[in-house]
């Protein structure tokens, strides 16, 4: 057993020091009534070659949209980008992935400084003063934003745009289910695809996703004004942070909290996890934030260093009065996000964003000009857009093309949601247009 170093001689020597006759004696105080009555039945142990064969067989039973030979326009909350080789090469250093939460700063400066840089990048992208060290994912980050808005405003009712990703809405519903809080949905305008607001009332916050689930860019300044007029916070969620390379940041548009999902820029899609929840807010709300924060300080010789800070908000200090129960977060994926954003830099971020916009606009025009398709909404989009499919059944078209490893988009009733990024060459887009045109009766 290669991970268990003990020889029988080791065991014998250790038992002697302990003063126990056998290993089993160390378990003798556990009452027989609660002891296992039979050995674990988990299948035979596998040597490494057999293990790789077994896992290889399992892997081969899926047809990954992200593999060679496949062409995918799947997005809908997870937009895969090209992640440079250097990201995973650096992530593979054991100093990153086999370390724990940086509780001992003198020997954890690597993680602490990297996450400090992550906080800086997230705050910059969202145009807000402070960002935390990450949340589980975009959905739980949005739910935590609603809880934070309650701490800031003292109000328990939220309004959520119907353009928020359905998983995020469902997660918010689950998070609020044990509390006295509630929310209502603000519908989308059927023509533009943007959130429409009737009278807001005394609510804690308005939660909107931009670009929203259907890819539509929301008019954030107008929504901020409407929320602030009633003393509510504007929470902006995003499943595609890259949009803010081309779009004015949530903070500049008036958002009080911004949150989102960074998986598409950090790592492979990995069936949706692990990703990284992004979370930022206005500086005056710092002490209401959920999750960990890294701060800059000095050591006794005045050298710059970093520590976990403002921990009196957190569960290990404040227990039932903590701002959140989160402990383990998504640190390693936050690191991957950080490395990629550093590789891109200011210029790369802007250019990558421009590439996505241009490719998606090209695809949008080509597809909307087909006889069987029309644009679902009129408001501008970034790198994802919704098409209405003539005849109604978008799912059937998608399933048919998926048989040939062309994942054309995400279908819901008569609507097809198509995501186009820098990964798609013009020829890929032209192929999508051609095959979608042919598959429709």
């Amino acid at each position, binding site marked *: 057993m290669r991970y268990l170093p003990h020889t029988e001689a080791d065991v014998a020597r250790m038992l002697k020091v302990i003063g126990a006759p056998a290993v089993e004696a160390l378990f003798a105080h556990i*009452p027989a009534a609660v002891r296992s009555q039979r050995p*674990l039945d988990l299948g035979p142990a596998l040597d490494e070659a057999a293990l790789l064969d077994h896992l290889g067989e399992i892997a081969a039973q899926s047809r990954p949209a992200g*593999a060679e030979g496949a062409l995918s326009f799947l997005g809908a909350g997870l937009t895969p980008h090209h992640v440079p080789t250097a990201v995973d090469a*650096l992530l593979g250093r054991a100093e990153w992935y086999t*370390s724990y939460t940086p509780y001992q700063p003198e020997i954890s400066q690597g993680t602490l400084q990297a996450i400090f840089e992550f906080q800086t990048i997230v705050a910059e992208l969202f145009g807000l003063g402070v960002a935390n060290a990450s949340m589980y994912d975009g959905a739980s980050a949005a739910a935590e934003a609603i809880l934070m808005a309650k701490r800031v405003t003292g109000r328990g009712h939220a309004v959520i745009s119907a353009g928020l990703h359905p998983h995020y809405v469902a997660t918010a519903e689950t998070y609020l289910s044990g509390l006295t809080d509630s929310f209502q949905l603000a519908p989308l305008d059927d023509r533009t695809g943007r959130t429409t607001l009737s009278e807001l009332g005394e609510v804690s916050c308005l939660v909107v996703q931009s670009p929203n689930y259907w890819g539509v860019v929301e008019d954030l300044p107008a929504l901020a004004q409407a929320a602030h007029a009633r003393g509510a916070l504007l929470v902006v969620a995003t499943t595609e942070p890259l949009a803010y390379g081309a779009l004015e940041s949530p903070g500049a548009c008036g958002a009080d909290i911004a949150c989102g999902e960074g998986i598409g820029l950090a790592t492979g899609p990995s069936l949706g996890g692990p990703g990284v929840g992004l979370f930022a807010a206005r500086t005056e709300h710092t002490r209401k934030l959920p999750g960990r924060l890294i701060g800059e300080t000095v050591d006794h010789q005045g050298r710059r260093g970093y520590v976990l800070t403002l921990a009196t908000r957190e569960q290990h200090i404040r227990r039932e009065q903590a701002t959140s129960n989160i402990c383990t977060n998504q640190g390693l994926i936050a690191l991957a996000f950080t490395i990629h954003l550093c590789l891109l830099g200011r210029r790369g971020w802007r250019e990558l964003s421009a590439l996505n916009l241009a490719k998606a606009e090209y695809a949008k025009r080509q597809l909307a000009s087909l006889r069987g398709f029309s644009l679902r909404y009129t408001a501008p989009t970034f790198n994802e857009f919704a098409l209405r499919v003539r005849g109604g059944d978008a799912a059937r078209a998608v399933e048919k093309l998926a048989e040939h490893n062309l994942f054309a988009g995400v279908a819901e009733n008569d609507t097809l949601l198509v995501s186009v990024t820098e990964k798609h060459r013009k020829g890929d887009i032209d192929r999508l247009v051609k095959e979608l045109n042919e598959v429709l009766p």
Partner: protein
Amino acid sequence: MKRAQPIETRQLLHSEPPIFEQGSPGRSGASLPPLDVPAVDPVAHFGALARAADPELAEVSEVEVTRHFTRLSRWNYAIDIGLYPLGSCTMKYNPKVNERVARWPGFAGLHPAQPPSSLQGALALMWSLERLLCEIGGFARATLQPAAGAHGELAGLMMIRAYHQDRGRHPTQVLIPDSAHGTNPASCTLNGFTTVPLKTGADGLLDLDALRAAANGETAALMITNPSTLGLFEERIAEIAEVVHRAGGLVYMDGANLNALLGKVRPGTTGVDVMHINLHKTFTTPHGGGGPGSGPVGVVAALEPFLPTPTIEKEGTSYRIEYARPKSVGRLRSFFGNFGMHVRAYTYIREMGGEGLTRATEMAVLNANYLRARLQGAFPLAYDRPSMHEVVFTDKRLKKETGVQTLDVAKRLMDYGYHPPTIYFPLPAVTGGAGALMIEPTETETPETLDAFADALLSIVEEAVENPQLVKDAPHQTAIGRLDETLAARKPRLRWTKQSST
């Protein structure tokens, strides 16, 4: 000559400024494809919503990025560098084969919106992992959705609330021993429950009389950690469960310490109704400097209807994703959980098999008891009962005799080349101003490593007697000294700015 000496640290270690202070305007480490379609002007496209100014990102080449993050990595301690005996954190070795497998396109390249027919391997793996965890834990079903242990607690408590509501009951309280992790009470609050603390008994175990006095019709659940954070097996677990059940409540077990029980105790058969499992502790998925984790939750049959959506179901030889679950507590996050962690845990379990996992538990307990035997002469035990996978010492004697405290010992351990254990936890061990050292060596450490670590601690005790200031000023060998945490909290600098760099 002492038993052990501080390590020599003569390696080049570069001080590394924030990446934002490096590079040159206009520089980039990006490799982007050419634009092969007509350009779109963001201002023309988005109007006033177009971004006016770029975010202040770094402007560096790939070489600079590589050096920066390589240099930073070297400022980290890690399991692959040495013993990492954080109690309750189970810092065992993370097998390399797990990392390889999780990166295969057949797992890492899967998009969650693919048709289920193209995801059969992934669904099979999740279905099988659920079965394996249920066999290990003694449960009927499990959800793999929670992203970490605390997220699992949230899920478990929600299922408990839904269970009661389904029976027309609305109990409001959760009983929590004072030795519990801080996440337990925090998860209760997030769930709308009030918490009732239970004081640990004089023997270090949960006090049955205190439990009997506290359990009543308002009791939704007891949250118990077994073995407790004191490293002690709750020997009265069957009676405890009976008391809670008789009051109408359910028993939630924090499975953070499941590493002590593999093949020995299946918690679901001891009266426990719900338990979360930290894949990043017991099942070797890496901690990644703070995450990602994964916190599957096992439940007994009575709680199955309330599992989060979706679940994975097997029909004949194929697998499907089940969303129609009318009594479910709902969804806890996007997609299917931290799938990459599921792949790693599954790989580990299949490599070890039942016998291997049982042996892992035996060696984990052997290692903890060995350290206990080596150290209990110098450090009094918090509670003198049989230890499982971890052992909790106090600094009572050392502090009284030398003025040196737990924090000093922890910092001095770094000079000897070790990550310190968990300190000042759990609460019952630190009453009356004592400090606690909570040591969990895990099964993957050799006895030679344990001997060297014990020698280091014993040498530090000698140092504390001869030259207490040496220990109080530690660490001396690290590249940076004790950091001013008060300053960090008083004047928070939570992001880099141009001003803060001067």
